[in-house]
C-alpha cells in the first residue's frame, strides 16, 4: 500500500514537475519515414550540431539499436502501439544518450504514426530546452507561426487520435485499469473525454463536471499538481462524488494536470487502478499527463487552424463569376479533407468586354496561402481594368506581390477571351498547360514565365494567341487533377486530355456534367486540392453575339 502523498510533497512535486520536464518531443510521420524521424529526433536533442562526417543518425546509432525503430513502426501498424522502448545515440567519445520512445498509429490513418519521446535517465549532454515541431514553430516570431504549424500537421493529429493514444498508453505505461482526460470548457466546467474502453454507464454519467475543487480532477487542474489517493482517502476528500469508484473496484484513483510544452495547463488526466500493490510513481504519471497535454494542444491547434482556414478560403473564392460573352463557364473546386489549399480561379470582365479566365495555385497550404491567393486575385482584378496583355498582367502582379513582401510562390495561367475577334490569348507563370478540345484534344504549349513571387524573376516569355474558328471547350486545371507520382508529367497531362475528349462527346455534354466527369475520373494518387475551370466558346458568328 502506498503512502498517501502529503500536501507538502504534492506541492514540491508539482513545482519540480513544472520547472523540469523530461519531455523532449512528439514526432509525427508516415510508415516509411523512419529515417527522417531519427534525424528530427537528433535535432530535438540538439545532437545535430555534433561535428561528424555527413552527420546522420545511422552513424550515431549503435548497431544493436539500428533496427529498433523499424520494429516499433511495424508494431504500431500491426497492434496500434509499439509499447515503450529505449534506444541510444552515440555522442562524443563513447558517451551515449538514451531516449524512451513509444510509437502509436493514428486513428485517422493506420500508416501514419506518432512517436513520443523523452530523455531517459541522466544524460551526459545538457539539453538546453525541450524542442519539437510545436515549440520550434511556436517560438518563431512570425505571426503566421501557428498556421505554419497547422499546415505541417494538418491531418496528422486529431482529438480522436489523442483519445485512442491515451487508451493504449494507460495499460502499457501506468498499468491502469481506467483512464480519461478532461479539458476545461468555457462555462466553468470540465468536459471529460472517455476512452473507447470506458464503462459506458460511467462515461454517460460523468461527461461533464464543475470546474472547482470538489473533484480530484478539478483540484489537480486548478492546483497544477499530480496526485494518487487510495479509494478511502478519495471518498473522504470528495464525498460529493459518491461511491462509483469503489463500485468499479478501484483501489486507487489519481490525476495529473496536463501541460503543453511551453508549460501551460490545458487539462487534466484521470486514472484508476485496481491493484492493491500499486506502486504509483508520480513522475511517471506527470510525464503521461504532459504527453497527453502536448498531443491535445497539437490536435486543438490543428482543428482550430483548419476550420479557420477553410472558412477563410470560402470567403475568398468568388461566389459569382462574370458572364463570358460568346461562351459559358463552369468551375469546380474540391478540397482535400477540409484542409485548406491554395488553388484559386476567377473569371473577370476586362475594360474592353473581354473575359479573363484565370486559374492558379499558391504553393503551400493554410492561412498564409489563402492570404496570398486573395492578394493575387485582387491584383489580377485590378490589372485587367487597364491592361489587355496577359503576360504584362502577370508581370505586374508579380511586382505587386514582391512589393508586399509576400513569401509564397504562385503558379497562374491566364486565358483572355476576346469575343470580338474570336481569339484566346494565353500567358502562364509556371502553371500546367491548358487543354482545348474540338472533337480532339490538344495540350497547348505556351511560353513559360517563372512562378509569381520568384525572387528576381523576369516575365518576358510573352503570350500565345490562338484563333478560334469552331466551337471549343477549354480546360484550365490545377495539379491535383493530374498529379501521379512516378509517372511522366506529360503522360499525366495527356491522360487528362484524353479524358476531356472522351467526356466531351463532341461538345454535346453540358459543362456541369463534363466537370463532374473529369473530377470523378481524376486518377491522382496524391491527396491534393483540385480546381478546374471548363469553358465552352463559340467563335464570332457561331452564336447570338452582341456587338
Amino acid at each position, binding site marked *: 500500500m502506498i503512502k498517501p502523498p502529503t500536501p507538502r510533497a504534492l506541492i514540491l512535486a508539482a513545482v519540480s514537475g513544472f520547472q523540469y520536464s523530461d519531455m523532449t518531443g512528439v514526432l509525427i510521420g508516415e510508415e516509411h*519515414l523512419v529515417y*527522417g524521424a531519427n534525424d528530427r529526433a537528433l535535432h530535438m536533442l540538439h545532437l545535430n550540431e555534433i561535428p561528424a562526417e555527413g552527420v546522420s543518425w545511422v552513424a550515431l546509432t549503435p548497431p544493436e539499436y539500428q533496427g529498433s525503430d523499424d520494429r516499433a513502426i511495424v508494431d504500431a501498424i500491426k497492434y496500434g502501439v509499439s509499447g515503450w522502448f529505449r534506444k541510444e545515440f552515440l555522442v562524443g567519445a563513447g558517451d551515449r544518450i538514451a531516449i524512451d520512445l513509444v510509437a502509436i498509429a493514428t486513428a485517422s490513418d493506420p500508416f501514419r504514426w506518432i512517436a513520443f519521446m523523452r530523455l531517459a535517465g541522466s544524460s551526459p549532454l545538457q539539453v538546453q530546452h525541450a524542442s519539437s515541431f510545436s515549440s520550434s514553430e511556436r517560438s518563431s516570431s512570425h505571426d503566421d507561426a501557428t498556421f505554419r504549424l497547422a499546415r505541417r500537421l494538418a491531418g496528422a493529429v486529431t482529438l480522436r487520435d489523442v483519445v485512442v493514444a491515451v487508451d493504449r498508453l494507460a495499460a502499457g505505461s501506468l498499468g491502469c485499469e481506467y483512464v480519461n482526460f478532461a479539458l476545461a470548457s468555457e462555462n466553468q466546467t470540465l468536459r471529460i473525454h472517455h476512452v473507447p474502453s470506458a464503462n459506458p454507464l460511467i462515461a454517460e454519467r460523468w461527461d461533464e463536471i464543475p470546474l472547482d475543487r470538489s473533484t480530484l480532477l478539478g483540484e489537480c487542474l486548478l492546483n497544477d499538481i499530480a496526485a494518487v489517493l487510495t479509494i478511502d482517502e478519495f471518498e473522504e476528500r470528495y464525498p460529493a462524488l459518491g461511491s462509483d469508484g469503489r463500485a468499479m473496484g478501484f483501489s486507487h484513483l489519481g490525476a495529473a494536470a496536463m501541460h503543453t510544452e511551453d508549460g501551460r495547463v490545458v487539462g487534466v488526466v484521470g486514472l484508476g487502478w485496481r491493484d492493491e500493490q500499486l506502486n504509483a510513481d508520480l513522475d511517471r504519471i506527470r510525464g503521461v499527463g504532459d504527453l497527453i497535454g502536448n498531443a491535445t494542444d497539437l490536435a486543438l491547434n490543428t482543428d482550430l487552424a483548419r476550420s479557420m482556414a477553410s472558412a477563410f478560403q470560402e470567403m475568398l473564392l468568388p461566389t459569382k463569376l462574370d458572364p463570358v460573352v460568346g461562351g459559358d463557364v463552369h468551375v469546380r473546386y474540391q478540397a482535400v479533407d477540409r484542409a485548406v489549399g491554395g488553388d484559386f480561379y476567377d473569371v473577370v470582365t476586362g475594360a474592353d468586354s473581354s473575359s479573363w479566365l484565370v486559374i492558379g495555385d499558391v*504553393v503551400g497550404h493554410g492561412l498564409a496561402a489563402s492570404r496570398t491567393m486573395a492578394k493575387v486575385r485582387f491584383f489580377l482584378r485590378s490589372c485587367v481594368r487597364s491592361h489587355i496583355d496577359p503576360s504584362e498582367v502577370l508581370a505586374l502582379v508579380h511586382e505587386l506581390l514582391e512589393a508586399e513582401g509576400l513569401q509564397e510562390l504562385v503558379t497562374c495561367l491566364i486565358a483572355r477571351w476576346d469575343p470580338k475577334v474570336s481569339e484566346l490569348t494565353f500567358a502562364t507563370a*509556371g502553371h500546367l498547360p491548358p487543354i482545348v478540345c474540338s472533337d480532339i484534344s490538344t495540350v497547348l504549349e505556351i511560353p*513559360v514565365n*517563372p512562378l509569381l513571387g520568384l525572387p528576381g524573376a523576369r516575365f518576358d516569355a510573352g503570350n500565345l494567341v490562338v484563333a478560334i474558328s469552331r466551337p471549343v471547350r477549354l480546360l484550365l486545371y490545377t495539379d491535383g487533377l493530374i498529379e501521379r507520382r512516378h509517372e511522366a508529367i506529360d503522360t499525366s497531362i495527356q491522360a487528362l486530355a484524353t479524358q476531356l475528349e472522351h467526356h466531351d462527346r463532341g461538345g454535346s455534354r453540358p459543362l456541369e456534367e463534363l466537370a463532374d466527369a473529369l473530377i470523378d475520373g481524376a486518377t491522382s494518387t*496524391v491527396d491534393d486540392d483540385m480546381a478546374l475551370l471548363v469553358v465552352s466558346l463559340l467563335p464570332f458568328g457561331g452564336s447570338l453575339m452582341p456587338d
Partner: protein
Amino acid sequence: MPDSIKPFQVIATGDGWKVTGDIDISSSGALSEAFSGDRRTTEDGRVVVDVEEVTFIDSSGLQVLIDLSSQVAPGGVTLRSAPRNVRRLLELTGLSTTFRLENPAAD
C-alpha cells in the same frame, strides 16, 4: 519495409548534397533543414544537388530548392543528373534558368 519503397534521404557530399526518394510535403521540411546546415561547394562556389535518385518532387519540394537558390549567388545551384521528370517540372514551372543543369540523366 518493402524494398520497393525508396526512403527519402539527404546526404552531404563534397560539393553539396545528394537527395534520394520523394521530395514532398512530408520530406521537404527535412530537406530544408539539411540545406540550412553547413554547406559545401565546388571550387567555383556552386552548390550541387545530386537529384539522380529523386523519384518525385511536389510544389513544396520545389519551394525548398528555390529557397536554396535564393541563398546563394544567382545561378549558383546546380542540379546534377536530373531525371527527365524533374527537368520537365522545371520547364513547366519556368524554372529552367533558375538552376544550372549538369549531366542530365539520359532517359
